[in-house]
């Protein structure tokens, strides 16, 4: 943080002075603070749920240089919460979409684009030209990567993460404060913690948390108030309760402790147990699969096939193919409802939960159980395009 520019080298035009007048008249900001904002360089990792409000507000506030890292393309299911992206942007690069909006809000902000997946090879290079890093990523591997790169390069990590109605926020990796690894030394095993794509997220929740991040970024730049260092804010939007927990700097922390063992960036996919693209299969045995076309042909031929749907009842309401519904979590106690002499095809939304169900059923003695490849989404794509996708 020592290298943060004091703003004495920059000037504000009359246009900028008018634009930022509500800042300039506050004793906590003033002209001096606004110049600090203009001199500051902030990197947003991700332009999705958290990255949208972050980038929007930092741009509006007049942060001089804003870096954006993203490789993704705008998807229709993003629009419910990723407010940087509009309906017409579906299919565009998130960076293109984001930069259009941000430029329209504030043409005085310089935007640097990094059209890439942040990884151990490029992170330190990308971080070099920034003062503060804001983590709006969506997976454990990238979160540990962002944290370690922040510690190694001595830059604060303004952190938030979200799940359904709950969020967490803190400021990690400042000189005196704890880092993400002080709080969470190790990632959870793969599959134990569902992602937003699997578990869902309330659309406004990343708004709440991303705005907390933007607030902390601005406070760090201005050097005012009490930054969220050594404190973890827990937000429960259902109860609308904000709680605060203390996070201590762990003297034995492998990256920011007194005797660090992590002195350079590591392979974070390996660290977080990620093999291949998606989560690993629930068992080393190959899960037998059936393609949607094959299932359709055999059902049309009136073959005796029992379709088991292991999604949740509220998903069944959105769309179903008349399968028998037993949510994956209830399967162990409801397994007696199934006839092991029948041929069973199991499906879920995209094939992950049903693979676990097939694995479980085979271990429970069911011999003729297969997994519908790609789940009901593949069915909607390839067999019945009238089905809604979610």
């Amino acid at each position, binding site marked *: 943080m020592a290298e943060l520019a004091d703003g004495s080298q920059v000037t504000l035009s009359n246009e900028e002075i008018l634009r930022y007048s509500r800042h300039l008249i506050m004793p906590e900001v003033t002209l001096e603070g606004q110049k600090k904002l203009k001199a500051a360089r902030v990197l947003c990792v991700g332009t999705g749920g958290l*990255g949208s409000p972050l980038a929007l507000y930092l741009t509006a506030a007049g942060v001089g240089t804003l870096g954006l890292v993203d490789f993704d393309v705008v998807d229709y299911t993003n629009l419910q919460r990723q407010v940087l992206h509009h309906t017409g942007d579906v299919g565009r690069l998130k960076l293109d979409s984001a930069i259009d909006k941000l430029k329209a809000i504030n043409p005085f902000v310089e935007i640097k684009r990094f059209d890439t997946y942040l990884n151990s090879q490029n992170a330190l290079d990308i971080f070099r030209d920034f003062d503060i890093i804001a983590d709006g990523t969506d997976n454990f591997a990238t979160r540990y990567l962002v944290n370690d790169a922040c510690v190694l390069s001595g830059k604060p990590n303004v952190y938030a993460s979200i*799940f359904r109605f709950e969020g967490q926020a803190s400021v990690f990796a400042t000189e005196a404060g704890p880092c993400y690894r002080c709080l969470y030394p*190790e990632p959870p095993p793969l599959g134990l*913690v569902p992602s937003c794509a699997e578990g869902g997220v309330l659309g406004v929740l990343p708004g709440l948390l991303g705005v907390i991040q933007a607030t902390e970024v601005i406070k760090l730049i201005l050097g005012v108030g009490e930054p969220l260092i050594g404190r973890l804010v827990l937000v429960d939007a259902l109860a609308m309760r904000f*709680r605060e927990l203390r*996070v*201590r700097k762990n003297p034995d922390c492998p990256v920011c402790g007194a005797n660090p063992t992590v002195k350079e960036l590591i392979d974070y996919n390996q660290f977080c147990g990620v093999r291949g693209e998606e989560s690993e299969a629930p068992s080393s045995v190959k899960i037998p699969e059936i393609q949607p076309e094959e299932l359709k042909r055999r059902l049309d031929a009136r073959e005796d096939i029992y379709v088991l749907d292991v999604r949740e009842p509220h998903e069944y309401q959105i769309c179903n193919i008349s399968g028998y519904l037993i949510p994956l979590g209830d399967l162990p106690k409801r397994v007696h409802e199934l006839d092991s002499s029948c041929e069973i095809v199991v499906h879920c939304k995209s094939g992950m939960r049903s693979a676990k169900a097939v694995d479980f059923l085979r271990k429970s003695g069911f011999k003729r159980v297969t997994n519908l490849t790609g789940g009901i989404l593949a069915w909607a794509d390839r067999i019945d395009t009238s089905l809604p996708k979610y």
Partner: protein
Amino acid sequence: MPIKILIPTPLRPYAGKQAVLEVTGQTVGEALSDLVAQYPDLRKHLFSEEGKLRSFVNVYLNDEDIRYLSKDTTPVKETDTITIVPSVAGGR
């Protein structure tokens, strides 16, 4: 002596879908044992097969991490609140 335990959203499916539970015990360890006795599905999310608290699960007594108190032998009293703080990564 009932102690309040706050259950985070990702673990609620294994805790009867409840956000707040009451358990008994003289220490944090006893309170957590009572919790997994009431809700056995929670066990694998909180404890390793050797029965140790998993490293990615943080347990707080009021606003302090039990790692910096007396870990699972930290004494608890009726007015205390135990909070389970899981890692979540979502952001998009």
